[in-house]
């Protein structure tokens, strides 16, 4: 594949002036791959601990309820809610809507805010009930 190495490269991050759509798009990729690695790993640990019995579940709970475990769990839940919000935005863009400059910028700003608000509401419910 000698010719593949000489393919022209498109301009990358440092070329463009930052805008909300760019920020939301990058956040969508970061949260998606973060969920794929950390989110699925923690999910498997939780299921494995549950299947392993009471002692292994207690080990999981000990780490999950420690300060660093809470940081990871809150991070995973934020990554999900953010990825869900920007993923729903993608469904709208997929049908060809929402590309006008104003509405595109508006929803690019609103989806990360929705992700933060949903995360806050989820943990407020769990911790304050």
């Amino acid at each position, binding site marked *: 594949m000698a010719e*593949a190495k000489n393919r022209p490269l498109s301009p990358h991050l440092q070329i463009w002036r930052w805008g909300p759509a760019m920020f939301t798009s990058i956040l969508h990729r970061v949260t998606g791959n973060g969920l794929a690695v950390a989110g699925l790993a923690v999910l498997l640990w939780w299921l494995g601990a549950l299947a392993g019995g009471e002692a292994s579940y207690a080990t999981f709970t000990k780490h999950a309820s420690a300060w660093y475990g809470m940081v990871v769990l809150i991070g995973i839940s934020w990554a999900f809610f953010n990825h869900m919000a920007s993923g729903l935005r993608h469904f709208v863009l997929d049908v060809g809507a929402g590309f006008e400059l104003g509405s595109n910028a508006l929803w690019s700003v609103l989806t990360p805010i929705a992700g933060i608000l949903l995360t806050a509401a989820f943990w407020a419910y769990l911790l304050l009930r």
Partner: protein
Amino acid sequence: MGNGTSIGRVRGLGSSHSGSHHWLIQRFTAIGNLLLVLWFIASVMLLPNMHYLTVREWLARPVPATAMALLIVTTFWHARLGMQVMFEDYVYDSGSKFAVFALLNLVTFGGAAFGLFCIIRLALGAPA
């Protein structure tokens, strides 16, 4: 692929004709993730607590066990497709790309199999 003519070079760089299938499955699994993860979040919120016996009794029931098994399938499938796109963007060498995809398949299929095994073991009441 051709080296002599420009159309030959273009053919070597063009679509491999399976991109739209990948794109569609990414959307279908996204819909599955949306429904199933929201079900999981609602379930966690509705459970009285996250103690061992509470969670075990809940997840061993037929509908939660089925939904969790489906969640494992759609999330790992979606993650497999999404991480492929990331690697396609950042891994340039075709040999490295092959190795990364082989590893990605091993990890995602292995992880999903482990998750499904844990659910089946819980649901079918193997002594723990």
